[in-house]
């Protein structure tokens, strides 16, 4: 990572030399990137590219073989609690316990994340994610779209500086998904937070993300503005570029005008 000036505010997320190996198999190769304030960065790639492995390492539930994760300048390995107090996440594979109501889940996780004035915060999130009428309904009986909204409400509880979203709109209908994208966009631009977003919906990525990182076989293959990147690589759309990354990663790497740059784009 390039050195920051002494008075500079650190990026919300700085990943440097991140590597995860399982024996001889390397899942993530020396990944370096950053997410700045008010920035939404898309982490894209085919299944098995290393996106979830990367997110798990940023969340501290998977120990990197090498490298460092810094959240607002805090080294995750050394100051885990302080770093994760500034972080939150929603993932399609991590629903909240189905045997608690929405309000109960939000209260428990609000206490874990040290949220002040928790009751009004929960009320505000219930309204924001249109969950008020399900307040005392157990999460397990909600539809998948409603559960996704609950997971997003939990992810917003502590107004995280770093928000990690793993396919946050995968279970939502187009209208609700658009609404959620608008809210997350407003969240990122309104405060001093940054968002790392994974999605397989390229239309969504183009609409939401300021910058994308294309991952293939655990490496960053391409990086840039999702609206200009396809044309720079001779593709007509982001989806076409995604398919090329999935099918012909080596050819694309050779075409890349510049080597993938670490840090802020």
């Amino acid at each position, binding site marked *: 990572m390039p050195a920051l000036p002494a008075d500079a505010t650190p990026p919300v997320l700085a990943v440097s030399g991140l590597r995860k190996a*399982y024996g001889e198999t390397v899942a993530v190769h020396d990944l370096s990137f950053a997410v700045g304030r008010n920035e939404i960065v898309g982490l894209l790639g085919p299944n098995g590219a290393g996106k*979830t*492995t990367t997110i*798990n390492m940023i*969340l*501290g*539930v*998977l*120990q990197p073989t090498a490298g460092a994760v810094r959240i607002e300048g805090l080294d995750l390995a050394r100051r*885990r*609690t*302080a770093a*994760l*107090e500034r972080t939150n*996440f929603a*993932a*399609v*594979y*991590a*629903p*909240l*316990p*189905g*045997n*608690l*109501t929405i309000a*109960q889940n939000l*209260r*428990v*996780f609000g*206490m*874990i*994340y*040290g949220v002040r004035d928790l009751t009004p915060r929960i009320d505000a999130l219930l309204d924001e994610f249109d969950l008020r009428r399900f307040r005392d309904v157990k999460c397990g009986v909600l539809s998948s779209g409603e559960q996704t909204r609950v997971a997003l409400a*939990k992810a917003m509880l502590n107004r995280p500086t770093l928000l990690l979203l793993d396919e946050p709109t995968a279970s939502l209908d187009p209208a609700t998904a658009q609404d959620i994208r608008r809210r997350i966009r407003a969240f990122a631009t309104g405060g001093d937070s940054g968002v790392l977003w994974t999605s397989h919906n390229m239309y969504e990525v183009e609409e939401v993300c300021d910058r994308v990182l294309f991952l293939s076989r655990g490496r960053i293959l391409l990086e840039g503005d999702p609206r200009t990147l396809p044309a720079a690589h001779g593709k007509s759309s982001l989806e076409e570029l995604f398919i090329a990354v999935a099918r012909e990663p080596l050819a694309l790497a050779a075409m890349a005008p510049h080597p993938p740059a670490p840090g802020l784009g």
Partner: protein
Amino acid sequence: MRLARVLAIVLRQFYLIRGSVSRVLPLFVWVAVDIVLWGFITKYLATVTTARHSLVPALLGAVLLWDFLTRVMQGVTMAFFEDVWSRNFLNVFASPLSLAEYVGGLVLSAIATSTIGLLVMLLVASAVFGLSLATYGATVLPFVLVLFLFGIALGVFGSAVVLRLGPAAEWFVWPIPALVSPFAGVFYPLATLPGWMQGVARLLPPSYVFESMRALAAGGTTQPGALVIAFGLAIVYIVLAAWFFVRVHRHAVRTGLIARYSAESIA
């Protein structure tokens, strides 16, 4: 360590128990049934033996205290299993919650649930069979404390086993008290055991408690040194169990086990 985070785990457990008959009843029904069953067995044995001392404090007291230890262990493991069953590890371990706060929450939950079980057992044992813990005098407090600490150690150890081996391994955890009880001499003096089992018994804190309890029930006195050894051993087991849990958690973070626990839910 932040108290609010510890209390969040306790609150979660409270919400679950409050809203579920299947969680409320086991807190006291099985221990009450156990006391009734052993109470009548004790009464019957009293009519066919020529025991010099009352069997009630010796046998029924042993059942009560052993059930208490079991409830403490299960209090910890049940609270942990709630996260296993609801595939909640990723949400819990990817949060600012520290391992000490998490385990502290499990232990506080166990204190609450095992206290309910103990009170119900005392109520049934005294009302129906005339057992009073006052029979043992002030030594009942170290008895309970030693059993509580050892129960916590077993609970933390059992939780670590499930974290390491996966959800199906809970079947290794339930029989732990049954495996320990023959060595702990719950119902008979340690002298009854063969030499090698007595050697194992000397390493188990409950064996000192039950030997002392029988001595008191027979009108004798306890050896203060025995309870000091029991307390010291219980502390050692707590430390070992905590160390084991931390080791298993580190392994789970290194290998991705925690993330995989959640991934199973969509497999």
